[in-house]
C-alpha cells in the first residue's frame, strides 16, 4: 500500500483552502486515507497513528504544511497529489488586456481613470468615513454602499460635500442610476425626464422599473441612504439631491421616495419643494403630506401610484391617468382572486416573505384594508411587531434583509437560501393560505433567480394543496435576467405574478378577504 508525502515549507494557505484539498484527496478513486495539516508534534502523532508517517514528515517543523496520502496504487497516490497541487497552486485568473484593472488604492484608481467623478465605497463601516473624505478631497462624488458608518461621520461628510458642490449618497445607499448607468442594486431602465430622489433602495428600484415599463424614463436616480431623513442628519443629501434635480435641464418631473421623514426634515423638504418649478410626486410610505404644498405636487400612497403618476406626467399626461392603470390591474386581480379563494377550505393566513425592506412597508400600507392587522419584523406601527421573526403568526410580512437575517450572509436578493427554506416551511403549515413574495431583478441581484426559486416553489405547492403564491417581479426587459422570461417561468410554475408590489399585495389581500367571506 503506497504512502506518499510532501512538505510545503513555511507555506501559508488559509484553512478553507486546506479543507478543500483534504476533501479533494479523500474523493480521488483509490485513496485510502489522507492528512493535510500543519506538522505540529501532535499532528505528527496522529499521522503516525494513521500509518501515514514518513521520514520526510518526521523531519518537518511546526510551520510546515504536511500532505500525506495512502492509496491502493502508486498511480492513485500520484493522481491525489496532482489534484492537491492544482488546488494549492490555483491563483485568481489574471485580468486580460483591456479588462477592468484592480487598482492598488484610491490614488492609483484616480490616476488610472482620468475624469472619474464618482466613487462607490463598499468597505467595513468604520473605514468608510476616512475613505469617503479622501474621495471628496479628490473632487469625487461618493456613493457609500457601506453601512454602520457613525452618524457624526455621515453628517460631517455631507456638510463637507455640500461645501465642495459634491454629493454623498448614503451610507447604506444601495441604488442609484447616474446618467443612465445603474449602480450597485439597480435596474437597466429607459432614459427620460423623470428624476428620482430616494431614501430607500428597493423603493428606488420599484419606481424606476415601473416608470420604465410604462414607457417613460429616468434622467437621474439619486440615493441618500435611509438615515438621511432622520432628525440627526436633517435631510442633508435629500435636500441637496432635490436641488440638483431642480437645476437639471434633463429632469422635467421629480419623484421623491422615502419612509416618513422626521417632521423637522419634512418641513425643510416641503419648503424646498414649494420653490421648485417642476411637478413633484412624493411617496412617503406609511406617512402622508398633510398640507397643500403647491399646485403641481402629487402625493402618493404607494410606490406604484407614485411611479405611475410620475410616468404619466413624464409623458405629458395628467397625473390622474395613473388611476386607470391601477384600475386595469385591479380588474385582473379581482378575477384571479375569486378563482383562488374558491379552493380554500381550512387555510386562512397570509405570509409575506420579502427581500426588499420597502416592500414590507408598502405591504403594511396596502394589506390591512383587506386582511386586518398584519404583523412584521419591520412594523410601521410598533404594536404590530412580530414576537419572533422566524415563527410567524397570523397575517405576517417579514423583511429578510433586516440585520437579524443578513449578518454574515449575502443579501437575500442575491442568496435565496434562507427565503427558500421559509417558503417551504411556511407552505407546510396548514393554516397558511397565501404566500406573498417579491423578486427583484437587475444588477447586483441574483443572476439566475429561477434556478434557485423554482424548486422550493414546486415543493411548496406539493406540500399545501390550498396554497396560492402571489409575487411581484421588479425589473425590466433590459435587465440581465430579462423580466418577461422570469415572469413566464413563474406563471408556468403556478405563481400569480403582478406588475407591482402594491398590485401583488392587493391580489393577495383580496384572496384572503374573499376566502374568509366564503367560509362565513
Amino acid at each position, binding site marked *: 500500500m503506497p504512502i506518499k508525502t510532501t512538505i510545503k515549507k513555511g507555506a501559508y494557505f488559509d*484553512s*478553507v483552502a486546506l*479543507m478543500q484539498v*483534504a476533501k479533494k484527496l479523500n474523493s480521488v478513486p483509490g485513496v485510502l486515507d489522507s492528512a493535510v495539516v500543519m506538522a505540529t508534534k*501532535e499532528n505528527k502523532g496522529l499521522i503516525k497513528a*494513521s500509518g501515514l508517517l514518513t521520514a520526510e514528515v518526521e523531519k518537518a517543523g511546526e510551520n510546515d504544511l504536511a500532505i500525506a496520502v495512502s492509496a491502493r496504487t502508486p498511480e492513485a497516490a500520484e493522481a491525489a497529489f496532482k489534484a492537491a497541487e492544482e488546488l494549492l497552486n490555483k491563483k485568481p485568473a489574471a485580468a486580460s488586456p483591456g479588462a477592468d484593472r484592480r487598482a*492598488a488604492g484610491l490614488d492609483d484608481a484616480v490616476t488610472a481613470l482620468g475624469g472619474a467623478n464618482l466613487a462607490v465605497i463598499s468597505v467595513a463601516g468604520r473605514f468608510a468615513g476616512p475613505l469617503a473624505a479622501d474621495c471628496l478631497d479628490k473632487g469625487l462624488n461618493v456613493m457609500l454602499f457601506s453601512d454602520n458608518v457613525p452618524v457624526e461621520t455621515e453628517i460631517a461628510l455631507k456638510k463637507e460635500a455640500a461645501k465642495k458642490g459634491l454629493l454623498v449618497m448614503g451610507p447604506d445607499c444601495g441604488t442609484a442610476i447616474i446618467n443612465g448607468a445603474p449602480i450597485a442594486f439597480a435596474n437597466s431602465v429607459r432614459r427620460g425626464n423623470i428624476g428620482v430622489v430616494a431614501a430607500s433602495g428597493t423603493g428606488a428600484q420599484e419606481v424606476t422599473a415601473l416608470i420604465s415599463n410604462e414607457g417613460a424614463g429616468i434622467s437621474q436616480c439619486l440615493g441618500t441612504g435611509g438615515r438621511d431623513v432622520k432628525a440627526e442628519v436633517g435631510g442633508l443629501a435629500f435636500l441637496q439631491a432635490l436641488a440638483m434635480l431642480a437645476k437639471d435641464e434633463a429632469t422635467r418631473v421629480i419623484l421623491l421616495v422615502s419612509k416618513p421623514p422626521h417632521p423637522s426634515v419634512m418641513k425643510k423638504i416641503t419648503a424646498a419643494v414649494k420653490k421648485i418649478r417642476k411637478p413633484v410626486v412624493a411617496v412617503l410610505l406609511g406617512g402622508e403630506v398633510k398640507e397643500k404644498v403647491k399646485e403641481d405636487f402629487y402625493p402618493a400612497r404607494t410606490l406604484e401610484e407614485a411611479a405611475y403618476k410620475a410616468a404619466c406626467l413624464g409623458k405629458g399626461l395628467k397625473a390622474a391617468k395613473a388611476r386607470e392603470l391601477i384600475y386595469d390591474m385591479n380588474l385582473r386581480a379581482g378575477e384571479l382572486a375569486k378563482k383562488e379563494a374558491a379552493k380554500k377550505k381550512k387555510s386562512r393566513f397570509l405570509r409575506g416573505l420579502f427581500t426588499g425592506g420597502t416592500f414590507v412597508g408598502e405591504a403594511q400600507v396596502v394589506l390591512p384594508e383587506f386582511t386586518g392587522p398584519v404583523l412584521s419584523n419591520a412594523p410601521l406601527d410598533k404594536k404590530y411587531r412580530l414576537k419572533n421573526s422566524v415563527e410567524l403568526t397570523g397575517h405576517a410580512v417579514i423583511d429578510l434583509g433586516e440585520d437579524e437575517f443578513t449578518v454574515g450572509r449575502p443579501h437575500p436578493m442575491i442568496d435565496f437560501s434562507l427565503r427558500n427554506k421559509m417558503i417551504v416551511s411556511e407552505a407546510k403549515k396548514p393554516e397558511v393560505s397565501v404566500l406573498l413574495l417579491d423578486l427583484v431583478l437587475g444588477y447586483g441581484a441574483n443572476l439566475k433567480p429561477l434556478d434557485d426559486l423554482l424548486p422550493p416553489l414546486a415543493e411548496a405547492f406539493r406540500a399545501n394543496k390550498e396554497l396560492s403564491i402571489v409575487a411581484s417581479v421588479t425589473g425590466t426587459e433590459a435587465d440581465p435576467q430579462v423580466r418577461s422570461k422570469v415572469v413566464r417561468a413563474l406563471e408556468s410554475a403556478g405563481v400569480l405574478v403582478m406588475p407591482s408590489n402594491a398590485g401583488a399585495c392587493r391580489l393577495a389581500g383580496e384572496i384572503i378577504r374573499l376566502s374568509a367571506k366564503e367560509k362565513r
Partner: protein
Amino acid sequence: MPRISAPVKLLSYGDLIEKGEYKLHYRFEHAVNLRKGQALLTILPAGRPAGPFNLVLEELPEKISKVSFDGKAFLLNGDRVALPRGAKYDSRLAVARIPAAKLTANLQRLRKLICDSAPSKSAVFLLDAAREAGFKSGFERRFVARMKEAAVSLAMGAYEAGAGGMKGLGFGMTPSGDDFLGGYLLGINAAELYSAKNLGLVKERVYTSALGSNLVSNAFLAASFKGRADERVNAVIRALFSPSGRATQKAAEELLAVGHTSGGDIAAGFLYGFYGVMNI
C-alpha cells in the same frame, strides 16, 4: 500594488504590543507577522480586526522587514508613524453581570448557532456528536478521538492532560486544538469576571500545558490567558453578557462568517471553559 511612498495611515494598534524592535517572521497575502523573541506583532490591512497584537494600517506596506515600537510611535522601515488619538485597541473582555437566566439563554443561543453553522471540520463536534459524521478518513477519525479524549480530561479537571493532549492538534494554520484552548481560557476568564471566583490556578494549569512552539498560537494563548481577545471574539463575549439575545446571534454570525474553522473552534472552547468552571 501596495505603496510605501505615501504616508502610512494607522487605524488601530493593540494594547499588548510590547515595546522593542520586531523583525519579519512571515508574510502572508493579507498579514505580515513580525517577531521579537517570542513576542508577536501582526500587521493587517483595513477591514481586518483590531487585536491585542495587531497593528492595522490602511494598506499593507509593500515591503516591511523591521518595525520598532517605543510606546509613542511605530517606526516602519524607518518611517515614523504617530499614534492617532483613540487608535489604541482595548482588548479586555467586556463582561457584564446580567441575570443568570438571560446569560443561560444567550449561551444556549450561541451553542445552537455554532452547532448549526460552524464549518464542518471545526471542533464543534465536541458540542454536537452528530457532526462527527463529517470526519470520514482514518486520519480525521483519529483526530476526533484524540480531541474527545482531551476534552473529557479538561472536563474532569485533568487540565494538564487535557490541554497537553489537545494542543497542536488538527486543521488550520493555528490548529483547531490551539484555537479551542484559547477559547477555553477566554471562557474561564469570562467566568471569573462574571462570578468573581478566583480561577487563577486553573488558568495557569491550562495555559502552561497548552503552550507549544507555534508563534501565532502561543500569542493567541497568551492573550487568552490574560483575558484579552481580538474585536470579533470580544464582540461575541460582550454580546453574550448583554441582555439582547439578538446581539449574541449577530456577533456570533460575524465570528463564524470568517469562513475558517477558527471561529467555531474558539466558540466551542469558550463554552467548554465557561460551563466547566462555573460548575466547579
